[in-house]
């Protein structure tokens, strides 16, 4: 059982506090993604799990055992780095077998394990090559192979796809997903790319400035973001935010409006919102529907820019109160810049946040 549990984990480099008390539970066999903007402490957190960084405060348990002071090799983890970190002077075979060589595993067993890893990753034909003869994706596969032969309870990935080009990234993403299915091991995956997070994760941990913003399944986070940060971070294009005034609050619903918005009622569940206070209304671009006549819909403004992508049209609209919003339409549509436009949406798909 490779349950990973972080309790009140903190990390400081000298005086700077980088991780500020993090609690995360990772179940056995779960695929957990740490996501957040660059510099929020994702790598630091992962490296603490790996044992490459000391834990300043709090406890880290792997498989029910506190491992704060256990050296990396005894934690039952394997790590895959963004920069591949494979040895240029060794062949692929030697690279994959590196950990086995270090630990004096007999030749036959070594060959067997390397062959097995190569089979899983479909790279048998690469085994005798040198890293310089491999593409980026192949190199990362070698690094994953090296992790597999360790037979770890927990795989740790630190932005493994960030150095790959877009097309390859998607292939490898699918492959890592498949690897998780095949091996059933616990995996912790760090990325700043929300698409990777949404597609791979059983559970996403959103981090910001060393603090956990929200933990949950991808759809939970997408449809019920706990705060403005999570709402804005997940989803592409990101959620539109409109400053509104609250006219009335009752029964978990609030009536909000502003210069460009006809009064509507939205849910306030779980939010601290009072009558007369300022609030922020969030609507995803995909839920904004332009109507032919400007007077229809609830939001009113002018088209600033249209990007036609074929199957999709992205429209930037300047609202009457000065806010700019994006609408993403699932069809090809011509909307001339400058024309007046009305945008409708289902209030059930709108989120209301207290003013930050």
């Amino acid at each position, binding site marked *: 059982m490779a349950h990973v549990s972080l309790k009140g984990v903190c990390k400081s480099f000298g005086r700077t506090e980088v991780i500020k008390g993090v609690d995360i539970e990772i179940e056995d066999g779960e695929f957990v993604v740490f996501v957040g903007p660059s510099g929020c402490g994702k790598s630091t957190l992962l490296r603490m799990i*790996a*044992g*490459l960084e000391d834990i300043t405060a709090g406890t880290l348990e792997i498989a029910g055992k506190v491992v704060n002071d256990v*050296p*990396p*090799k*005894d934690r039952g*983890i*394997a*790590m895959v*780095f963004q*920069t591949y*970190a494979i*040895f*240029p*002077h*060794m062949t692929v075979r030697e690279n994959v077998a*590196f*950990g086995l*060589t*270090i*630990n004096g595993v007999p030749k036959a067993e070594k060959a067997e394990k390397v062959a097995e890893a190569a089979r899983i990753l479909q790279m048998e034909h690469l085994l005798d090559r040198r890293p310089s003869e491999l593409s980026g994706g192949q190199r990362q596969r070698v690094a994953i192979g*090296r992790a597999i032969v*360790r037979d770890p309870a927990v795989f740790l990935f630190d932005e493994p796809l960030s150095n790959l080009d877009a097309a390859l990234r998607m292939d490898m993403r699918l492959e890592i997903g498949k690897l998780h299915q095949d091996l059933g091991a616990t995996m912790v995956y760090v990325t700043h790319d929300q698409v990777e997070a949404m597609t791979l994760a059983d559970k996403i941990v959103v981090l910001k400035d060393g603090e956990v913003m929200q933990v949950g399944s991808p759809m939970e986070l997408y449809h019920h973001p706990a705060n403005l940060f999570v709402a804005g971070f997940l989803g592409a294009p990101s959620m539109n935010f409109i400053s509104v005034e609250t006219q009335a609050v009752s029964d978990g619903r609030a009536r909000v409006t502003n210069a460009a918005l006809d009064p509507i009622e939205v849910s306030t569940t779980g939010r601290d919102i009072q009558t007369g206070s300022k609030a922020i209304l969030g609507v995803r671009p995909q839920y904004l529907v332009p109507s032919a006549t400007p007077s229809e819909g609830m939001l009113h403004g002018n088209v600033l820019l249209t990007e036609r992508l074929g199957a999709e049209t992205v429209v930037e609209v300047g609202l009457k109160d000065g806010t700019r919003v994006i609408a993403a339409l699932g069809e090809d549509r011509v909307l001339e810049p400058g024309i007046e436009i009305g945008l409708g949406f289902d209030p059930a798909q709108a989120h209301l946040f207290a003013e930050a």
Partner: protein
Amino acid sequence: MASRLTTSNRAGWTFALPGFSLIALFIILPFFFAFGLSLTNQRLVSPNPTQYVGLDNYRELLDLGVITLEPERDEAGALLRDDDGNLEYPRVREITRSDDYPQYSGMREWFRWHSGDIAKVVVASDVVFMKSVVNTLAFVVVVAPVQAAFALLLALLINQRLRGINLFRTIYFMPVVVSIVVVSLLWRFIYSGNDGLLNNLLGAMTFGAWQPIDWLGNTDTALGSIMAMSIWQAVGFHMVIWLAGLQTISPTLYEVAKIEGASKWQTFRYVTWPGLRNTAVLILIVITMQAFAVFAQIDVMTGGGPLDSTQTLVFQAVERGYGKQDISGGATISVILFLLVLSISLVQRYLTRERR
């Protein structure tokens, strides 16, 4: 486009010109000059006209012969022995000065060995030169590997993140920036036989049991003493080169080794040393060349003595060219040295070539 290329080229050449002409004037030209001189009988100052002598200078330096001597017998055929019981042999001088053996004329004994009763005597037309070749080779063979190894050791030690490590870096590097002449003078005091620091130190450590040695005045210790001092003096320079090499190795590779639980030695063997390959080749070649050029230490500390035990090639070249005003002889030695260093460097390049 073409005109821009030529103008920028012209600017490039203009910048390169000062350096290039200095190199041509002081390195390339003198080299060909020396080669030309080595084929003449030119003296530094001489009333006689210079003559072309072909390879005579080379012959005078390099001619070798082996003379087999039978032990002396009395009329009855019994072996004659001297007072100590050693066999008696004819004098080598009787052969090298005899008109019956023109091939040995002018040669002197270099060394001899015995096989059975027979003595084999190696005679050379220039024994001092031969000794300088042997000393120089010995110097290179000892200094190059020992200095490289010490320098690597120091580089590994100071490549750690410790408080005050910069102090050590400075200390180790200090001898490099002090003039070799000054260093040599200081070490003459250290090695002094009367009241030298080294003898005093050894005396103190052995509670007075140590018998003082005149380190530089003894044929057994003179060359070794100069080697030790030379290694100490330049080790900091090579340490810095190793250090530069060490810092090109990706820290992530060390983390991989750490996760696999590699010991210190395994980390060195699998991560550090392979990563230093190119640096090692560079250092090997640079140290070899520097060691072949050993001069200042000899000039200041021993002047080639005692009994020619510290003669070296460059010292001989200078001594002949300027001391004895035999500029063609000195030039010949430098050409021989050049060919020697060139061929050794080529062999080193070949042995350390990138293998695929």
